C-alpha cells in the first residue's frame, strides 16, 4: 500500500451559487506527512477543509481517503474512516464540562456508539484515556469547568484535543494558532507535534514561523487554485508564491 496518498483531491470544484470558490484543486497528501496549506484570506482554505471532511458536498471532482472515495459521504461516516478535523472558529460543547467534551470525542472510536446500556462513570478505560488526554492538553485543572468558560487559548487546546481524541490517522487542523500570543503559539505547536505523532496532518496556518517549523510540504492556495506545492525550501524560493503571497505578507 506504499505510495497510496492519505488524501487525494482530483480537480475538486465548489460553487456557492454562481461563484466558484474552489476552482479545480488537485492535491496529494502522503501518509505520515505534515502538510500545510497557506494562502490569503478568502482563498478557500476553510472551504477545502469543509469539502474534505464532508461538511459541504463538492460540485465536481473527487476526494479519496486512502484510496476510498469519500466525497459523497456525510461527515460522521468520513470521521469513522479515520479522518478528523478541527474548526477555525472554535466548535465545542459549551455547556458540557471540559472532561465531558473530551470523553464525547472518544466515545465512537471506543465502540460505544449509541449505547444506552453502558454507564459512563463505570467505563474505566474510557475515563482513564480521557484523563490522560486532559493532562496532555494541560487542561486537567479545568476538568469540571463548562467548556464555554475556558479562556480562548484553552478552548483552542480543547479543540485540538477533541480532534485527535478519537485516534483518527488523518488530522485536519484549521488555523489552530490563530489569535494566540507568541508563547501560546509555541505551546500549541509543541502540542500539535506531540498529539499528531505518526499521523497524517493537514493544516491551514497563517503564522509562517509555524508553517516552516512544522510542515514537510506546503501548498499555496490563492483564489481557489493551487499555485505551488512542495517542500518549504522550494516554496520559499518560488517566485510566483513570493509575488502572490509571501511578498504581500512581508510588505
Amino acid at each position, binding site marked *: 500500500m506504499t505510495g497510496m496518498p492519505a488524501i487525494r483531491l482530483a480537480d475538486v470544484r465548489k460553487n456557492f451559487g454562481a461563484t466558484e470558490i474552489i476552482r479545480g484543486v488537485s492535491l496529494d497528501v502522503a501518509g505520515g506527512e505534515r502538510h500545510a496549506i497557506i494562502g490569503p484570506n478568502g482563498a478557500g482554505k476553510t472551504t477545502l477543509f469543509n469539502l474534505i471532511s464532508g461538511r459541504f458536498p463538492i460540485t465536481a471532482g473527487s476526494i479519496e481517503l486512502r484510496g476510498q472515495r469519500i466525497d459523497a459521504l456525510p461527515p*460522521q461516516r468520513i470521521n469513522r474512516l479515520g479522518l478528523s478535523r478541527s474548526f477555525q472558529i472554535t*466548535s465545542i*460543547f459549551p455547556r*458540557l464540562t471540559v472532561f465531558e467534551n473530551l470523553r464525547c470525542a472518544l*466515545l465512537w472510536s471506543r465502540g460505544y456508539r*449509541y449505547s*444506552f446500556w453502558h454507564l459512563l462513570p463505570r467505563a474505566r478505560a474510557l475515563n482513564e484515556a480521557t484523563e490522560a488526554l486532559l493532562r496532555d492538553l494541560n487542561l486537567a485543572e479545568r476538568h469540571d469547568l463548562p467548556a464555554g468558560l475556558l479562556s480562548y487559548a484553552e478552548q483552542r487546546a480543547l479543540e485540538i484535543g477533541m480532534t485527535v481524541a478519537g485516534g483518527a490517522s488523518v488530522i485536519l487542523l484549521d488555523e489552530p494558532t490563530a489569535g494566540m500570543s507568541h508563547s501560546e503559539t509555541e505551546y500549541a505547536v509543541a502540542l500539535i507535534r506531540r498529539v499528531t505523532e505518526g499521523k497524517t496532518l493537514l493544516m491551514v496556518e497563517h503564522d509562517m514561523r509555524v508553517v516552516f517549523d512544522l510542515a514537510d510540504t506546503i501548498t499555496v492556495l490563492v483564489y481557489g487554485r493551487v499555485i505551488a506545492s512542495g517542500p518549504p525550501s522550494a516554496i520559499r524560493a518560488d517566485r510566483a508564491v513570493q509575488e502572490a503571497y509571501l511578498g504581500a505578507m512581508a510588505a
Partner: protein
Amino acid sequence: MTRRSAIIWLTLLAVAIVLPWLFYDFAHHRPAGFVISMLSQMGMMIILALSYNMLLGQAGLFSLCHATFFGFGGYSTIHFLNAAGAGELPVPTELMPLLAGLSGLGLAIVFGAMATKQRATAFAMITLGIGELVATAALMFHHFFGGEGGVSTDRMIDQSLFGLSYASGIQVYYLIVGWTFVAALLMWLQTMTPLGRMANACRDNFERAQFMGYDPRIVRFLQFCLAGFFAGIGGGLYAITYEIVTFDAVAAPLSANALLMAYIGGNMVFVGPVLGAVLITLLQSGVSLMSNSWLIYVGVLFIAMVTFAPAGITGIIMAHGPVWRAGRLSRLILPYLRLVVPGIATVAGFVGMVELLSFLTIGAAAGKHLVLFGSPIDANTAAPWAIAIVLLVVGTVWLRFEARYFARVWESVAGSVEARA
C-alpha cells in the same frame, strides 16, 4: 451509582411510601383519599415531566406532542386491561405499565422517524402537527379511542404478582410509587450513558457531534423513542388509576403541561421536572379548589419564570450554591426580605383583580359568594376594586425598585464570589 445518590433515591422512595399515612383519615381508618389521589397524580406527572425533559433539557428538542405518547400508553392500557379482564391476556396488573411503555415506544418510533429528521423550529412544528393529528384521530376512530366518551375499563383483573386486588386507592398508589421510582431511576441512569451524553452534546452543538462519528439524527431519534417509552409508562398508570382514558390524555393542554412542569422546575437539572411536577400538581389540586382561575395563575407563573428565571426553580437554587459555599448567603437576607412585602402586595393585587373579574363573569351568575383572603366581599362596590388596583400598582412599582436593589447586591456578592474562585 455513588453512595450519596443511593441515599437520596432511597430517602425519596421512603418519603413517597410514608407520605399518605401522614394525612390519616381517622373517620374512615385509612389515609385521606384526597391526598392519595393527589400523590398518585404527582407520580404520573413526574414521569411525564421527566420523560419530556429527556427531549427539552437533555436534547434541546422542543416537542409539542409529548402527551401523544402518554395518552397512547393510556388508551392501550385500557384495552390491555379489558383483554386481561376477559381472560385473554395473562399479564399481571403490575406489568401493565410496561406494556403501556412499549405502546408509547411503538408510536414514538413511527412519529420519531418523521420528527427527528429535523431539529429546532422545524422539529417543533412537526411535533405540533403530530399532536393535532393524534388528538383528531382520538375523536374520529371510535374502535380504539372511543370518541368523546373515551374508553374505560375495570382495573380489578384478578391477575397480580402479589395477590393484590387494586380495589383501594392506596394499593394503586403504591403501584404508582413503584413504577415512578423505577422509571425515574432508569431515566436518571440514561443521562449517564453514551446516548444520553451525546444528546447533551447535540443539544449544545450538533454539527461538532457529526465530526466525532455521530449522526445527530440518530441521537435525536433514539432519545425521542426512549422519551416516548417512559411517557407511555406514565399513561399506563393513568389508565390504571382512573379506569378511563379520554381525549384529554392525548390533547395539547397536557403536552403544554409537560413543558410547563419541566420548565418551571428547571430543565437543566435532572430533578428540576420532578419539582415542577410536584408544584404544578399541588397548584392544580390546591388552588383549583379555591379558585376557577388557577390556570391563569399557572400561566402567569410560567411567563414570570421564562422572563426572570429561565433556568427554573432548580436554576435559582443552583445559582445560590457558590454564594452559599463562600459563606456570603447572609448578605442576601436583607434584599430578600425587602422583596417580601411588595411581592405579597403585587400578588394579592393581581389575585384580587382576577378573582373580582372572574366572579363578575362566572361566579355571580352561579349565585356564589366571593370570599377573598378569608373575608366575604361584595364585588359590586368600589372598595375591593380600588384596593386591588392600588395593591397591584403600588406593589409592582415598589417591587421593581426593590428588585433593582436586589440585583445590585446580587451582582456584588456574585462578583466577589467569582473573584475568590
